[in-house]
């Protein structure tokens, strides 16, 4: 297509909506709107549409991540070395567990 005729064709397309008539919806739109409003009043459909919102879904996922991170963080703080060793020593004392070395065997008293 030559330059001039191309420009003419483009202008024709751009002006193709001149004098356009308004499109109208199907009849009884108000009845359908009322029916939809009744349906939306239903509590379960309101709840499901609320839960289905991306913002709500992301907020839930984010809260789960935060709770998990919090649990990990606080379990790290409470698990200090001193408190972890105390029960082990207590158990070893209670059952009289002793770790013998080679020195103990060689110098064993008759």
């Amino acid at each position, binding site marked *: 297509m030559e330059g001039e005729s191309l420009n003419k064709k483009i202008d024709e397309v751009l002006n193709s909506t001149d004098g*356009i008539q308004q499109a109208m919806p199907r009849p009884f739109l108000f009845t359908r709107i009322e029916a939809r409003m009744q349906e939306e009043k239903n509590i379960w459909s309101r709840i499901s549409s609320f839960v289905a919102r991306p913002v709500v879904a992301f907020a839930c996922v984010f809260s789960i991540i935060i709770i998990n991170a919090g649990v990990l963080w606080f379990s790290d703080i409470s698990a200090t070395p001193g408190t972890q060793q105390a029960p082990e020593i207590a158990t070893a004392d209670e059952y009289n567990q002793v770790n013998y070395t080679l020195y103990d065997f060689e110098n064993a008293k008759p």
Partner: protein
Amino acid sequence: MTETELIDLLKKRDRAAFKQIVETWQGMVYNTALSILQNAEDAEDVTQEAFIQAFESVAKFKGESKFSTWLYRITVSKAMDHIRRKKRKKRFAFIESLYGTNDKMVVDPPDFFHPGVSMERKENAAILFKAVEQLPPNQKTAFVLNKIEGLSYNEIGGVMKISDSAVDALLQRAKGNLKKILKDYFAMMNKG
């Protein structure tokens, strides 16, 4: 009954007033939604949503702008939400089809023919609507409100909450982009 009286009654949740408002502005709302969405079913859906939203939030309407401007704003916003939702669904369907969990094919919609266009201009208008579909949301809105709804720069500015000069700039960019898209389209048609 005047527009103000009608809106006052709507604020009191008057059913008859709501019915009259729907009947008065249904063409405007539907035509705008149809021109943006280019699908009759989606346009009907958005029209219903827009009127329900108007009914529920009419208390927020202070009369600073015309009621029609306010209704246009709701319609455009609902139409844009609808496009976003549809794109999200389309992306999800495409991913599903990749993993074989969705047998439905992801297909492009057929050409859109606006029912208000005269027969001799139908083909050209379909090409134009296809090109409009590729415009960024703001340019698309400004173009539809100006070329299809016939709103002035001032009225478009009221709907989009921007200045007249910003509307002018948007429309200039929209027309420039459309010319480029159409040029590429005709070049491709000549090759094929």
